[in-house]
């Protein structure tokens, strides 16, 4: 979560087609988009916003590998070092019998790890209170938000330019936004 309050100007669109078209226009006009909110996963949106592929699957693999090692090494240690017992005349270190539990723990570690990671990096969790721009965003409106207090910058220069709010409002008007609001979050 961002500690500092920021002021955003956001516009709502009725359709994902309008949203994508507006995003393209913003990009073409070099207006930096702060955030896009949608009521459902809009396919084809990620490349438009230049979002990199999520690396969650790498985390999932690492957690899974940790599960594999934990389960296998622990069972091996128990039955060869800590308390060796012969079951049914099999060797102490009976690898095939370890496979089911090793598999289950791989899945368990991977799932729990990924879910916890997901909520952590998204700043979410039980009772988390993230600012909500508009009540209809989780219903049927598609939202583009601009940071109007220095967050946005003109790509042509290195300096922060004061954002031309009127220009942004104009942008929303011309791209078919049905509602435009300013909010401090």
């Amino acid at each position, binding site marked *: 979560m961002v500690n500092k309050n920021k002021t955003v100007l956001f516009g709502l669109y009725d*359709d*994902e*087609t*309008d949203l*994508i*078209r507006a995003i393209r*226009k913003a990009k*073409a006009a070099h207006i930096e988009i702060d955030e*896009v*909110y*949608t*009521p*459902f*996963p809009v*396919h084809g*949106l*990620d*490349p438009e*916003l230049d*979002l990199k592929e*999520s690396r*969650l*699957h790498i985390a*999932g693999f690492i957690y*899974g590998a940790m599960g594999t090692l934990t389960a296998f090494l*622990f069972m091996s240690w*128990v*039955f060869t070092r800590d*308390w060796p017992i012969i*079951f*049914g005349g099999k060797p102490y270190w009976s690898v095939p*019998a*370890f496979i*089911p*539990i090793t*598999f*289950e723990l791989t*899945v*368990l570690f*991977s*799932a729990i790890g990924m879910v916890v990671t*997901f*909520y952590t*990096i*998204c700043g*979410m*969790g039980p*009772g988390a*209170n*993230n*600012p*909500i721009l508009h009540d209809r*965003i*989780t*219903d*049927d409106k598609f939202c583009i938000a601009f940071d109007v207090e220095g967050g946005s910058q003109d790509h042509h220069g290195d300096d922060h330019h004061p954002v031309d709010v009127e220009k942004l409002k*104009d942008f929303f*008007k*011309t791209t*078919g936004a049905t509602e435009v609001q300013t909010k401090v979050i």
Partner: protein
Amino acid sequence: MRRMLKPNKFMSAPISNIREPLITGSKTYHQITEDLIGPTEKVPGFAWIAGVMTSLALLAFGGVAIFWTIWYGIGSWDLNRTIGWGWDITNFVWWIGIGHAGTLISAILLLFRQKWRMGVNRSAEAMTIFAVMCAALFPGIHMGRIWMAMFIFPYPNTRGPLWVNFNSPLLWDVFAISTYFTVSLLFWYTGLVPDFATVRDRAKGFRKKIYSFLAFGWTGKAKHWQRWESLSLILAGIATPLVLSVHTIVSFDFATSVIPGWHTTIFPPYFVAGAIFSGFAMVLTLMLIVRKVLKIEDYITIGHIESMNKVILCTGSIVGVAYLTELFIAWYSGYVYEQFAFYNRALGPYWWSYFGMMSCNVITPQFFWIKKIRRSVAWTFVLSIVVNIGMWFERFVIIATTLARDYLPSSWSYYVPTWVEVGIYVGTFGLFFTLFLLFLRVAPVVAAAEIKSILKTAGDQYTGPNATHHAHHDDHGHDDKHEDLKLPADSNSFMDSNRNVATAPIVEKTKRTNTQEETTSYQKIEDDPEVYKGKEIDTNLDPDDPNYKSSFVAGAVGAGAGLTSLGTHEDDLKKVEGIGPAVEKLLKEGGVKNWKTLAAANPEQLKELLVEAGGTFKTMDPTTWPLQAQMADEGRWAELEKWQDDLDGGKIS
């Protein structure tokens, strides 16, 4: 209030009009919210309260039976030296099996990109979780001293430490089922979070507080959706082998023993198939009621029911084959104990349970070969209950008939459950339905956000026989495009005109906005290259780009009726996904010799060509071929390959 449906420029183009719509009633996004979130906002009616009361009464009866068991011990179940397992393990396996459908629908069907899963995945997953809770109860109390239940987990203890036996299938069960429960819960809840956010944003007062907590602070950011989808996909990926492993391990409880009738290698696949079979039956039983009561027939359509019935038919047939295989192997093995076990099952004192199993599981699902029955709600309801009765008999047959007559004839007996065992089973129904009814009130029963994401590809106003928005018409908003857009025969100018047309939807959009003022300001921006480099966008076309698609189709339509040959050189048309050697031959005979020509062709013309050719050609969908060909022609191989990964046999999946 219902918003006027806008033509869809983004997703409608690649839709096949052959597929049955998954969402009926010409929904809008907001209407979906109203329909699916609405039920959580109403005060429960009499039927719901009566249902909960009944369930709680059953649960209370189960509670008494469980208390009885714990107070007097397992002896109150009439289990003894030979009959160590009775109704308890029968019910355990039955409930676990029912749970499997939820994971199958949400995970395996997600991997297979079956969109119909979205109508039922939420409730099926809930069913999974509740069914696993019911199942886990049985081995828990079967251990007798339930306050010692932690002994089943490996933890450092004062007994040596003496560890649990990691080589035992019973312990594998502990790990499998606890993992299965946890992963199912995480998967289900993660899917629920965006919908809880929708409930939150519509709620007021105290309800808002509760749902704010449940929604975990979800806002719907694009990046969060991306991660959410990635997470769902990977959880589905790992839940798929998990669900198969769970019932495999449950079957190991039997298969690794030395009891005739149990120690067969066919058990794992046969158990998994049986689990899916019974699970789908339970999903149907529940959803047929739920869709009626909550009036969500538009989201769980007859098409959904038919799809599930097909799964039942398939897995039911697998189960049937497994039964017959068991019989055959018993005879063919020449092993007298095995032969006796099966003879005893079919013709011994428990013949009635074997008969019930065979008729309910093998014969009744075969009715689903008939399309009318597959699509009949009444038939499906009855048969789904019959299937679950049959699957309960299957577990009873496996457990009771085998144990009642073991190796020693002197210890043979006839096992009958006591009221305590029956009571616990009844109690689990109480638990299951109490939880399920609460779920119906608290959470959106159908995954609303996911349904919205398929609206434009599976809504009945976009696809199917009643579609009012046909892709090509939508893309331009003017049906007179044939006259409007003249395409020069020269290929270069074709590309140019293509680009120009790309702006057509945007201009059209401006026309749709009513006020003159907006139109002028828009054009002003577009005219000013410093502010809006409109032309630049058009050169960066990609296949996901609606303008690209639409412009292309428009350009091609303008080409006129016949297929214009552009150049005489020949290319390998098979590079286009969906075109095989036979189609290539057909196209080349039809004058389409190279990528360029194919690129300029219009899918409708290609379709005509295919229909004329008849046979299997008729069913092919050439919608994407021109686009693919264009990429090939322009040498954008990486892009083409990437796109082809998403395509399903050349069709947009």
